[in-house]
């Protein structure tokens, strides 16, 4: 190799340059870990969203119903008919309760109201058992 190189008069890549390249690569790798690996401070987004979701369930769970049953959530979870009747009112009510920068989805044993749930953004969730099944609320930032 060396003989051939000499024979062609070819320059050899300087060894310090190669070492430097490897060294820079290594240092950059470590620096990348710092850039991406450090936790963000403050109130975690999930904690805030979970608080919104659980507040919404508490408020709904304590509200008097439109027609029968003990609370609003119990009413929508009670039966297919009750859900069909109350779905629009429930959606309006949840929309009113939540701040404007949030989207939501409410799942009851007889159907869901709200928006399609995205899989790529942080989401807060709260579930509340009622007499006839579990009601789940998801919220996320619009």
């Amino acid at each position, binding site marked *: 190799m060396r003989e051939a190189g*000499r024979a062609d*008069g070819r*320059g*050899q890549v*300087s060894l*310090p*340059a190669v*070492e*430097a*390249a490897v*060294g*820079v690569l290594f*240092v*950059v790798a*470590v*620096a990348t870990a*710092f*850039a991406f*690996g*450090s*936790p*963000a*401070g*403050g*109130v*975690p987004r999930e*904690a*805030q969203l979970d*608080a*919104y979701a659980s*507040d*919404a369930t*508490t*408020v709904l769970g*304590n509200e*008097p119903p439109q027609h029968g049953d*003990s*609370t609003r959530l119990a009413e929508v979870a009670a039966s297919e008919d009750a859900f069909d009747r109350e779905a629009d009112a429930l959606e309006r009510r949840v929309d*009113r*309760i*939540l*701040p404007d920068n949030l989207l939501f989805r409410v799942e009851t044993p007889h159907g869901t109201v709200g928006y399609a749930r995205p899989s790529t953004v942080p989401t807060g969730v709260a579930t509340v058992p009622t007499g006839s099944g579990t009601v789940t609320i998801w919220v996320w930032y619009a």
Partner: protein
Amino acid sequence: MTATRGQANLPALAVALLLVGASVGVAVALAGGAFAAADTDPRDARLASSLAERLVAADGPLSVRTNVLAADTVENASGDLCPGEADCRVRLDGETVAARGEPKRGETIRRIVLVADTEWRTLDPGLPGEDAVTLPRRTTNATVRLDPPAGTRVTTVRANDRVVLHDPGGLDGSYDLSLSRYDTVTLSLDANRDLGAQTLVVDYRVETTTKAVLAVTVDA
């Protein structure tokens, strides 16, 4: 032979050292920034969320029940709510209701609450034939005022078939009732003869709630 070789060792070494040195410098600066960002003092976030949790709890200083604040207590709230020595501010829909100091940075957590305003309403049902009256709203407290005509004894008052007042000698006067928030209540009277239209007047407590966002900022 050696003269034809294009190797330049010393300048290459200098450039290499410069490169490595520069990248180490950048990396250290990045790491320093990351450490500074990670050291955000979790105290603020923790204090803010625990104070918010306390304010919305059922036995909180401003609460009627969980997530429901009483309008008159909110008006009288003061900075004493703040934990320890921290600067803090409690806002309800952007309006400051309580503050101590001036939190400049700090952390904010928001909760959804209802603000309840209570008033008493009077129902004078004029008792139709069946001696029963349904309250138009669900309520936890009601006062019945009984004033039966002379010679008539009201012995029992029932709320949804539950006996809430009973006196074989006759009820007359004003009585407080505790009712359930989860039921629509029908009050019915048992009497020894027909009651006049003026016998029963019911005062009941009505809650009007408005939704609001409670924002708690703490800068410890």
